[in-house]
């Protein structure tokens, strides 16, 4: 690995081998990684909300599952990735607080995961692995050389998917 590139909340970035991508402290947001395994080009988007069409203020494409993944693919193809061979790995979408009433606002993590999967399905991108849901935060790192997504959480063992 050469350089670890950070992706913030409602942000996206791409990189080529041997660099890696990371996003720190994912909560209800979803980190979606797209990967071209042949050219070893990866992209990571940190999605906050499921659907750009339901929000008035939607200039930031990386904020939403639908537009974020489109924007990520566009950035990846710019640096040489082949749209047809992309695979995906996703993590996050936790419910951080144990709310007693189950209203829509509280299920946001779950909805982010559903929307991300739906978008991948519509684009015909195969979801290779996921670590989603539950009630804890995750830091993720994606390594372009191996295609492995590493997940770190507080008080838990490191996962590699």
């Amino acid at each position, binding site marked *: 690995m050469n350089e670890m590139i950070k992706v*913030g*909340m409602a942000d996206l970035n791409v990189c080529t081998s041997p660099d890696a991508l990371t996003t*720190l*402290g*994912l909560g*209800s947001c979803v980190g979606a990684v797209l990967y071209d395994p042949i050219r070893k080009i990866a992209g990571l988007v940190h999605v*906050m909300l499921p659907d750009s069409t339901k929000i008035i203020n939607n200039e930031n494409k990386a904020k939403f599952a639908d537009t974020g993944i489109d924007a990520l693919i566009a950035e990846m193809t710019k640096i040489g990735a082949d749209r047809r061979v992309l695979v995906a790995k996703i993590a996050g979408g936790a419910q*951080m*607080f144990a709310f007693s009433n189950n209203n829509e606002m509280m299920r946001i993590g779950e909805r982010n995961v559903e929307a991300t999967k739906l978008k991948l399905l519509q684009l015909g991108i195969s979801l290779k692995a996921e670590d989603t849901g539950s009630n804890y935060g995750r830091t993720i790192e994606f390594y372009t050389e191996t295609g492995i997504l590493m997940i770190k959480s507080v008080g838990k063992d490191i996962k590699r998917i």
Partner: protein
Amino acid sequence: MAHINLNQIDNMQYDVLREIGNIGAGNATTALSQMINAKIDMKVPKVDLLEFKELSDIVGGAENLVVGILFTLEGQIDGMMMFMLDMGAARHLVNSLMGSSNDKVDGEFTEMELSALNEIGNIIAGAYLSSLSSLTNILITSSIPYMAIDMAGAILSVPAIEFGKIGDRALLIETEFGEDGMSVNGYFILIPTLESYSAILSSLGL
């Protein structure tokens, strides 16, 4: 009705929001001081309008372990309020409240201590919101406290998502308070819906 756009807050609105933070946090600090029976000083609150990517930096990085206590708001103002403490501050407050020796500085909280933390959150939020309520003459009621101890980024994602629905930045009222030279950091984050912002500003004649 006053309209507010989080991407273009004018100076007047900014000042009013800072004053709300000042009054709310001032009352909350007083309540906290009475509860642990110690003098607590509060610094002038900072009102920050931050981009989402900068958000977690304020609490010492996205992976920093913090205690977050969240309330949902109902009544004439909808939204959320969060009170966040770093682990050191949380431990210090719990020790002060429960009269336990201050040498225990780390390790996991017991059930009893978690319950005490919840109560601290409850009293602080109650004081904050009731002062806001009497200032604006708007009825605000809050839910029971919901607590999580995790990475700051993960906890902040919950209010950040609410801000995400109305803009690309989050409005944060940050208050630092300390006791006898020991500085602890606490953050109050008030997240009204956009309509509720307007209601607050209108009630104050803006």
